[in-house]
């Protein structure tokens, strides 16, 4: 949803919504990680995750990897189409 909102904003601004610059890519991934953390706090899952022995770094990687993968798919998908 966050990515869709960013895409909408970039389309309205007349930018390339599919192929982000490196800075924008890092920003999107950090935003996704931050939203993941907020959601974890909202659902009060911290104690459950800590009881599982999951470290905050591992959790951040779990949030970041799908976002990064999605961005690469979009980037190369757009490159193939054009």
């Amino acid at each position, binding site marked *: 949803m966050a990515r869709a909102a960013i895409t909408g904003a970039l389309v309205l601004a007349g930018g390339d919504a599919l192929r982000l610059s490196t800075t924008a890519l890092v920003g999107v991934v950090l935003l996704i990680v931050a939203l993941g953390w907020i959601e974890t706090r909202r*659902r*009060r*899952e911290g*104690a*459950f*995750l*800590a*009881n*599982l*022995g*999951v*470290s905050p770094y591992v959790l951040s990687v779990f949030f970041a990897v799908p976002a990064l993968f999605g961005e690469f798919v979009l980037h190369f998908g757009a490159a193939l189409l054009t």
Partner: protein
Amino acid sequence: MNPILAAECVAKTFAGRRILSSASLRAVPGELRVLMGRNGIGKSTLLKIGAGCIAPDSGHIRFGGRAYLSVSLRKLAAEGLFYLPDHDLLSTAFTVRHQLEMIRRQFNGGDPAEAAGLMGIAGHLDKRPFELSGGERRRAELAAVFVRRPLCLLADEPYRGVAPKDAEALTKAFSSLAADGVAVVITGHEVPTLLDAADHVTWCTSGTTYELGPPQIAARNESFRREYLGSWFYSRAI
């Protein structure tokens, strides 16, 4: 027997208010200990410090023979601690079965179906926690404990808002864990339930803790009766 978990001489101040000045928490294998005290006196804070959820201003924590000035729940959990917070433990995003499976895979734990059966929630395994009643959620959390098979369990007010039948099931579970050698510490205000179940009572008051001993002896402690149990219990006990 030596405690597996000991938070010794801990102090904690929140926003300029001294909650604990020199309090201690000990969890002994095979014992069910209850930590009692008035609201806001620092029981939950002490339990959270023992669990590694918050760092003490001073004092130290020992777990399994290792001493720490500051430690995380994640680290203690990997060494055998399980912490039940004073709010729901299980995530609303997944079914109870899924979460018990996560614990089983992570720690090579017990069978989730067997643990659920033990806690009387076998029929609720494929539900998400928000579909369960408060008592059933507590039972599901205890099922998670049975799957984990911890060395030490800290439970913060596990009896909050549960029906007597559920409370009875929780007490049986805590006693069974202690009988299996787990070091159990629970907090709460359900005096008759807690005193019936406990092997040892710790009283938290005025920023410190007093080891009152077995419930029969604790209930005869004049200060404990006057300042915590109150006149109702006082008249019953006499």
